[in-house]
């Protein structure tokens, strides 16, 4: 059984939530409890599968899984002339890392949803779409095929948009979902056009094969620009961020937590295109600076837009844009010095690790913050900060989780945000001090903003209209607790986490040759 799980992990990672999603509406017609148990079981098994996959990848290297073959390793048929024809998954440390992060958030969100959406109708569709959204994320981070990436990007976008619109909310949520679906479909078409440009030149869709043949011709440059635009849009990077506050604030809070991971899958796609598909063949200094500028813009505009917000989830959504900037900054600095071995060793590697470490930290603490926002919304029925107050008396656990999340996002030790931000500050300072100072200023502004939220929501005297409402139900607290424990754990043991999880993931992106060789098996023509 264990061997089977380990050998088939990439397929099971997709097949399990897919099967779960298809059976959910059928089960929901007979028994609500049975369906809930089924969804929890499926998301737990998915978490187990993702852990198994990560274990295989971290111990034995990149996992190439070929669909439709007799054996998973038959990526290149003997009579194909060294070209991978079949659809294959190439899960390297970075992909396994993203899948693990997504499955943890997914499990926490499912637990949380058991109580948070209990009173709403159409829960069969809710859970089915939630599992499909997970399928889209897992597919994006596992695949080694460009067209496959597009298909999973669309699954991700469509399931996400339908979930954003799930609480119709007098049509406002549907408006946000419409915006999200429209924008991401346009982005998806741009991506597909870029894939078509690459296929027309290299007669292949396999990322590793195209990377091995990459000549960086004029159509390749157009494809690169289109892909960066499409995936940055999916990740919610300034200036393509305008859908983010709408979609994040109007979606149910549990969904917002998973939308953060869905956006990060777009970020993963961006890194995969930049590092594994193009790598050193492109003008990496220019592209690196473009990524850095996008990161700085996201950081700064995100936080300045967040400060005046009165809607708690809209405020957090702008902070999500701002935090995405940190990841882009770290990775962009690494990209800008990609071909320079001494600078890479001096600070490039650390910048990359900081950026990637920030991805999982952000998924955890931002998910946690959105879940606490949902708990507050369930309690008060409003998202307006001016109408809240005094909740600290009745919601002690929620307040504790909020403090953990807020301190982590502001980069206060010993929480996880501090560890990754410190890595980014140090390495970016060696590259360009001014960028590092901007990053610190943004961090201070983030802290100020969350102090304001904390004061507005939890401090002050008890409000009469929230009288008689206690703490939120246990499943919601359990979902938040999972993320809170990980946020603290990553903050207390950052060195171990970086050594075990982050460094292999960063190396997997930086060493383009290893990625190509693991798929093509040294048969590069």
């Amino acid at each position, binding site marked *: 059984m264990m061997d089977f799980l380990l050998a088939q992990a990439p397929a099971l990672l997709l*097949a399990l939530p897919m099967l779960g999603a*298809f059976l959910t509406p*059928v089960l929901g017609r007979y028994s609500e409890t049975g369906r809930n148990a089924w969804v929890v079981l499926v998301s737990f098994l998915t978490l187990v599968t993702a852990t198994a996959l990560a274990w295989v990848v971290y111990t034995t290297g990149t996992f190439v*899984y070929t669909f439709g*073959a007799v054996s998973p390793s038959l990526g290149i048929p003997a009579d194909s002339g060294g070209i991978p024809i079949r659809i294959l998954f190439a899960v390297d440390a970075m992909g396994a890392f993203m899948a693990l992060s997504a499955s943890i958030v997914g499990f926490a969100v499912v637990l949380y949803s058991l109580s948070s959406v209990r009173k709403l109708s159409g829960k069969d569709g809710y859970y089915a779409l939630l599992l499909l959204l997970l399928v889209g994320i897992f597919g994006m981070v596992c695949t080694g095929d460009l067209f496959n990436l597009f298909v999973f990007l669309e699954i991700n976008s469509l399931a996400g948009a339908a979930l954003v619109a799930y609480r119709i909310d007098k049509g406002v949520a549907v408006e946000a979902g419409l915006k999200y679906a429209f924008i991401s479909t346009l982005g998806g078409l741009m991506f597909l056009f870029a894939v078509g440009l690459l296929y027309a030149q290299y007669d292949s869709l396999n990322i590793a094969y195209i990377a091995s043949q990459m000549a960086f011709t004029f159509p390749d440059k157009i494809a690169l620009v289109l892909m960066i635009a499409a995936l940055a849009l999916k990740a919610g990077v300034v200036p393509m961020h305008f859908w983010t506050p709408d979609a994040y604030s109007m979606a149910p809070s549990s969904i917002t937590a998973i939308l953060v991971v869905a956006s990060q899958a777009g970020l993963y796609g961006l890194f995969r295109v930049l590092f594994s598909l193009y790598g050193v063949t492109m003008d990496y200094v220019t592209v690196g600076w473009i990524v850095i500028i996008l990161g700085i813009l996201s950081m700064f505009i995100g936080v300045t837009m967040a400060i005046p917000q009165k809607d708690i989830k809209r405020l957090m959504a702008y902070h999500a844009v701002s935090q995405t900037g940190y990841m882009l900054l770290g990775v962009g600095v690494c990209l800008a010095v990609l071909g320079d071995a001494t600078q890479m060793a001096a600070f490039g590697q650390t910048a990359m690790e900081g950026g990637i470490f920030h991805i999982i930290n952000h998924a955890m603490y931002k998910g946690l913050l959105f879940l606490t926002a949902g708990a507050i919304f369930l309690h008060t029925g409003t998202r307006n900060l001016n109408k809240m107050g005094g909740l600290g008396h009745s919601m002690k656990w929620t307040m504790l989780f909020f403090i953990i999340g807020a301190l982590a996002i502001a980069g206060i030790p010993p929480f996880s945000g501090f560890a990754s931000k410190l890595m980014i500050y140090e390495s970016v300072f060696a590259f360009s001090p001014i960028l590092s100072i901007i990053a610190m200023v943004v961090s201070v502004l983030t802290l100020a903003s969350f102090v304001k939220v904390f004061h507005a929501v939890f401090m002050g005297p008890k409000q009469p209209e929230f009288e008689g409402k206690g703490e939120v139900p246990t499943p919601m607290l359990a979902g938040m607790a999972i993320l809170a424990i990980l946020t603290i754990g990553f903050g207390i043991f950052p060195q171990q986490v970086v050594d075990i999880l982050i460094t292999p993931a960063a190396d997997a992106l930086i060493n383009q040759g290893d990625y190509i060789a693991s798929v093509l098996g040294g048969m590069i023509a």
Partner: protein
Amino acid sequence: MNMSKIVRAAAHLLFPAILVYGFYIVVHGHLTPGGGFQGGAVIATGFVLLYVAFSYQRLQEWFRLDAFKNAEALGLLLFIVTALVALGLGATFFYNWMANTGGLFGTPVPFGPNPGYLNTAGTIPIMNIAVGVEVLGAMSVILFYMLRGIKGGDE
């Protein structure tokens, strides 16, 4: 509201023909252009034709919306189970475990040009049928929901 008698009579006449044509496209998916999605879409247009021609109440006497939802779930499950069986046989996900076994859809195909043999291609026709059933269910449900708004049915 019912449409005129001419439209209703034509719908009665055309509906079986559309169904037959759709199923033809589905089961010949591995031999000719077409396949599960295209055939399922053709079948769904047959139900839409009925929907345009007859009133919502008449249609409810003939079909239940739940039946289409069941078809959707059944198609998806058949699809994924066919792919999962391959895992049980020790191959990878989506491995074509029925091809060239001599049984259902298992006749080996001789190399070179041929007029097209129906009983070949292993799991591909099964997947086509699964997709066809899924698409006819899903498309009908979507179109019913949309048309219900236009024809003034209940929310």
